[in-house]
């Protein structure tokens, strides 16, 4: 691996971690922690189909994620069923379809991801998409925060919570699509949940909460990739171990 290329991978990984951390800090305002896990499973059949038809897996993943998110959002508003019930069903369905479509070797890759095997094109795409996600979240941060805290209050200020929730889910889907190369279908949810959960333990204001989520996401990702390359571990699980360790430490410093 050339130095330039590994720098690209590190940048891509760090920025994915930062974007996912930022997204997670909004998701945790409304107990949406497991949405990331569910969505990353929904991506699986998309990846499998993309491999079969020889398209970029990122595209396949994103297409399925948008379908899955729109499906969940639509059924939720039509049936008033709790989101976690729907997510639980979509999640199992997608995993089953993915498992049938993908070969065993592809499946392992899709389940755990491996960011060190990004192509140059994929690395650059991941960098740009992560930056886009972060900017979009920052731009809409007040609106998202208010909607997450109380839809009624949001509505009283003239916002449209229903539409904002959909935009948030789309950004969520995009984050999972770009994160899936890093954490795979099984661990991508951790990119969203762990840094934000740690930041929440350590901060008292929204500003520091968002900032720390980004820093923790970025740092754990870079450190995870670095250590995994050094010792030959898989990067996704290494990230989870590092950020998980920081989370447990943070429990003792809750504010």
């Amino acid at each position, binding site marked *: 691996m050339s130095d330039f290329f590994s720098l690209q991978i590190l940048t891509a990984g760090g920025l994915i971690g930062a974007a996912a951390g930022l997204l997670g800090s909004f998701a945790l305002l409304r107990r949406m922690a497991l949405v990331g896990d569910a969505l990353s499973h929904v991506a699986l059949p998309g990846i499998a189909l993309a491999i079969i038809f020889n398209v970029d897996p990122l595209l396949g993943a994103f297409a399925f994620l948008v379908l899955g998110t729109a499906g969940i959002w639509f059924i939720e508003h039509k049936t008033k069923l709790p989101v976690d019930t729907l997510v639980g069903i979509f999640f199992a369905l997608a995993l089953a379809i993915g498992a049938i479509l993908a070969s065993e070797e592809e499946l392992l890759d899709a389940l755990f991801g491996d960011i060190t095997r990004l192509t140059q094109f994929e690395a650059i795409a991941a960098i740009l998409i992560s930056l886009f996600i972060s900017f979009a979240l920052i731009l809409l941060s007040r609106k998202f925060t*208010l909607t997450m*805290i109380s839809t009624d209050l949001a509505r009283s200020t003239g916002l449209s919570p229903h539409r904002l929730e959909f935009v948030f889910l789309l950004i969520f889907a995009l984050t999972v699509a770009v994160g899936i190369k890093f954490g795979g279908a099984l661990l991508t949810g951790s990119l969203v949940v762990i840094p934000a959960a740690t930041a929440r333990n350590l901060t008292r204001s929204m500003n520091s909460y968002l900032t720390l989520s980004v820093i923790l996401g970025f740092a754990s990702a870079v450190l995870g990739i670095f250590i995994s390359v050094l010792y030959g571990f898989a990067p996704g699980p290494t990230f989870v171990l590092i950020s998980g360790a920081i989370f447990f430490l943070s429990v003792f410093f809750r504010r």
Partner: protein
Amino acid sequence: MYNGRTELKQVMSVLEVKNLNVSYGASSVLEGVSFSLDKGDALAVIGPNGSGKTTLFKAILGAMPYEGEIKIAPGARIGYVPQKLDLERDLPITVREFLLLRRQAKTAKTHSSEEALRLVGLKEEFLKKKLGELSSGEFQRVLIAFALIDRPELLLFDEPTASVDIAGQETVYELLNRLQKIEGLTLLLISHELSVVYRYANKVLCLNHAQICFGVPYEVLTPQELAKLYGGGTGKFYQHGGH
């Protein structure tokens, strides 16, 4: 001349509700509710638990599909103080940050966070506090401050079932009464106490799914109407909010 007067009245009306119907699935929550609010009015909405009071608020906020008409004066802003907000204690957000969420666009007309807190009788130090650390009385005041930030014309106030007043300070109704005067607010409040209605409201709306009465409290709140509203003995209600 008669025509001129109705026209004038239409201009002054901040909120007009005509033949409002709301239902959850097959069961009807509100039936044929009609009333209007002029600038500076204080309307108390009363009725037993589950009579559709909060639903009425949600319909006005556009949070619930309805049939009929809800007309809000063009350009009028609505402030909303919910009965409660299920906030997690560890939510990392300060009072200052929370108040800033209301101000989507900064114009000369909006209150600063400091001004908004002063209006509800809280000191500036509260800006740095975490939302989850406030007592329920303080939190309610912050919610009122939040509603006031962009100087709304209409304030919807859903009273908590248990009193959250801060000992030694003006009650929340004294506060609302004062704000109504200095901010020129039109008030729509859900109340659980009849004494409040007589003291602070110039109009009253009695709901029990259907509209039982609407008008000036001393005129429409007859024992018969109250019996119809609360189903028999009203003694319980006179004591304390029907609990």
